[in-house]
């Protein structure tokens, strides 16, 4: 309700988020162009963009809609593999990598949206813990389905096989001469052309932000917030709860699919087991650390927590142990009332924002 009375404040805050992303992009691009960035930093750029988009889209479900989803990596997976198929099968038709990449991202988003819609039908009838568990199950189902998928492409079009019993192989695709296998079931997608670029990642983040921030501040967004804050009250004033939940869930899935497509085109090999429960939780950690409903926070948290394990490479074997300890400390510190108050003093307007998010 506070948000209604301070539209100007919201615009300012959104402006800050956009500015943050644009400035970060400009600085990094400039550093990169001047050769200041090391190879390891360069290699982190595209996946970091993907995880930022993932965190933003999950924040839409968890923070704005208020439903805990534990299967978000599943949508990333759908987007990644459909994007790879689109990109690889159009390789001859569209030689321009930028156009092909954009198309693949759109295809990835569409497929993930469809998956989101189908999964949303049963899932959104549930609430709270039950919903969380069911999304977890669907994430695993998506992983298993993709493990059974064999996809190839030749001059006659795309060939798809479901290898449910495990007795089919690439040879059963019956590809014509010059055909190419794109997804080899359990072996995943191999030989993918790596055409993802940092600029594409940046554009995707901006589009994601644009969609999410506008959605949240729209009529639909206010209805969604009402559903989140008090479902019964929202129903009583005639808000169609299922409809609004579905809108947000599908958009969130589509954005995750777009992130997945970009991610898939950044690596030459990709297996479905990459997008397991751990990946979902990783993204959830970004969201929680950044603050539920706080988009700027998601971006910053995703960046820091994604770069951290790589920055800790100096510790060799103890890398992940230190990562876990840092994570615990950060989580404890950010929830400590004293430290929160300290932040409140340094950044006077932060207190107000924190209050709005918590309510």
């Amino acid at each position, binding site marked *: 309700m506070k948000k209604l009375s301070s539209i100007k404040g919201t615009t300012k805050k959104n402006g800050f988020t956009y500015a943050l992303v644009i400035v970060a992009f400009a600085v990094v691009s400039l550093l990169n162009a001047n050769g200041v960035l090391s190879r390891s930093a360069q290699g982190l750029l595209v*996946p970091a963009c993907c995880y930022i988009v993932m965190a933003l889209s999950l924040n839409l479900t968890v923070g704005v809609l*208020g439903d805990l989803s534990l299967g978000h990596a599943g949508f990333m997976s759908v987007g990644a593999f459909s994007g790879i198929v689109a990109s690889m099968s159009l390789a001859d038709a569209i030689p321009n990598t930028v156009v092909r990449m954009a198309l693949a991202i759109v295809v990835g988003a569409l497929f993930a949206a469809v998956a989101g819609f189908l999964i949303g039908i049963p899932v959104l009838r549930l609430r709270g813990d039950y919903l969380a568990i069911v999304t977890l199950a669907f994430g695993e189902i998506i992983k298993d389905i993709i493990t059974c998928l064999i996809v190839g492409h030749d001059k006659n079009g795309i060939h798809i096989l479901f290898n449910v019993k495990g007795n089919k192989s690439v040879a059963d695709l019956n590809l014509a001469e010059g055909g190419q296998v794109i997804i080899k079931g*359990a072996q995943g997608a191999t030989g993918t052309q790596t055409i993802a670029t940092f600029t594409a990642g940046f554009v995707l983040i901006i589009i994601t932000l644009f969609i999410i921030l506008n959605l949240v501040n729209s009529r639909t967004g206010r209805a969604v917030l009402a559903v989140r804050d008090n479902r019964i009250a929202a129903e009583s004033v005639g808000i169609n709860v299922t409809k609004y939940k579905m809108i947000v869930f599908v958009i969130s899935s589509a954005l995750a699919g777009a992130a997945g497509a970009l991610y898939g085109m950044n690596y030459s090999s990709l297996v479905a087991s990459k997008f397991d429960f751990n990946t979902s939780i990783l993204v*959830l950690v970004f969201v929680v650390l950044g603050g539920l409903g706080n988009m700027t926070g998601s971006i910053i948290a995703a960046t820091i927590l994604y770069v951290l394990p790589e920055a800790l490479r100096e510790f060799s074997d103890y890398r992940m142990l230190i990562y876990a300890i840092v994570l615990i400390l950060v989580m404890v510190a950010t929830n400590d009332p004293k430290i929160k108050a300290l932040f409140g003093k340094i950044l006077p307007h932060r207190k107000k924002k924190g209050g709005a998010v918590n309510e």
Partner: protein
Amino acid sequence: MRNIKKVLALVLVAVLCLSCFAACSKSGNTDATTAADDKTTVADETTAADKTTAAGEETPAASGTFKIGSIGPLTGEAAIYGQAVMNGAQIAVEEINAKGGIQLEFQSQDDVSDAETSVNAYNKLVDWGMQVLMGTVTTTPCIAVGAQTNKDRVFTLTPSASSTDVIDGKDNVFQVCFTDPNQGVASADYISENIAGKKVAIIYRNDDAYSQGIHDTFVAEAKEKNVEVVYEGTFTKDTATDFSAQLTGAQSAGAEIVFLPIYYQPASVILKQAADMNYAPIFFGVDGMDGILTMEGFDTKLAEGVMLLTPFSADAEDEATQNFVAKYKEKYKETPNQFAADAYDAIYIIAEALNKAGCTSDMSAADICEKLVSVMPTITFDGITGAGMTWQATGEVSKGPRAVVIENGVYVTPGK
């Protein structure tokens, strides 16, 4: 809202606990297998070597110092492979440096057997100034890293990534190990020639490129050689803890041989469960089975009679193998497995190729790559994982596989 927070808190606690456990079990592993102290001394020696060679570079010597990087799972599920590779490579590097001539500087990075992390590790090594990549250890990361090295023109020799996708379309990537199709074909051939007429069951992991790949070629070759496959059971990463259904299936189908084209960890569970249900077929594994004897907490008695196809056996009597095994045992207090041997050979192969191509250490990685790529098909190498190894320009190695059987906790040649 409050509910969600509670759930979130629970989930986070669970995740943090899990990551702690993962870290704990990992450090536990290092303690038991290579002894933590040993590890630190290795690290110390490496850094010491780094320093001396760095000093050596300032005064231009006749022999160059090449920077060899390696990537493999030093932590996580497949850590035994990665650690064996790094240990084996370390011994080879020390031997070559002691000999004089070209000098090698060696650095290893962890990739947890994950493609994304592996590419990050590769970039880290490029920052370090790596000139030749000896890696990566496992298949899926190797495909991703191979695409990068192909783009950047860095010569890549993988000790153990065995899929054909690793070398497919990449002229700069070579293998020391057999390809998966070769392993499947060789296993079927071996069974048809030496233990013919028996019914075969296969238990494999169908969400793993390695396992599925060997399974596919094995089944195709088995059909050709009239080996009767009576049962095929599958499992996935998540169901790798209970195999009673698959084993019962194999038993009731009357299988006398169980082919296990899988890694040693699930294999150890299968052996245990089969022993519990008094089912004693011949278990036949491939190179992923290697490592089962050094697995922590595994009763090696269970592995008695297990056959596996591996290019290396620590009991071979040639001088090179004996020397390597003795050094490895002294340094790391365990018997080296095939991965260590592959890596040991890989370093020697790189050194020989560098010598033959006449590379100098001031050349860029790309220049070295072009020279090595042209020289590789002309090399014939006698190593501890096979005599007379040669390479095709595609990157595939040709050498003979060797079947071994586990007796009294060591590999011996069958029928000996």
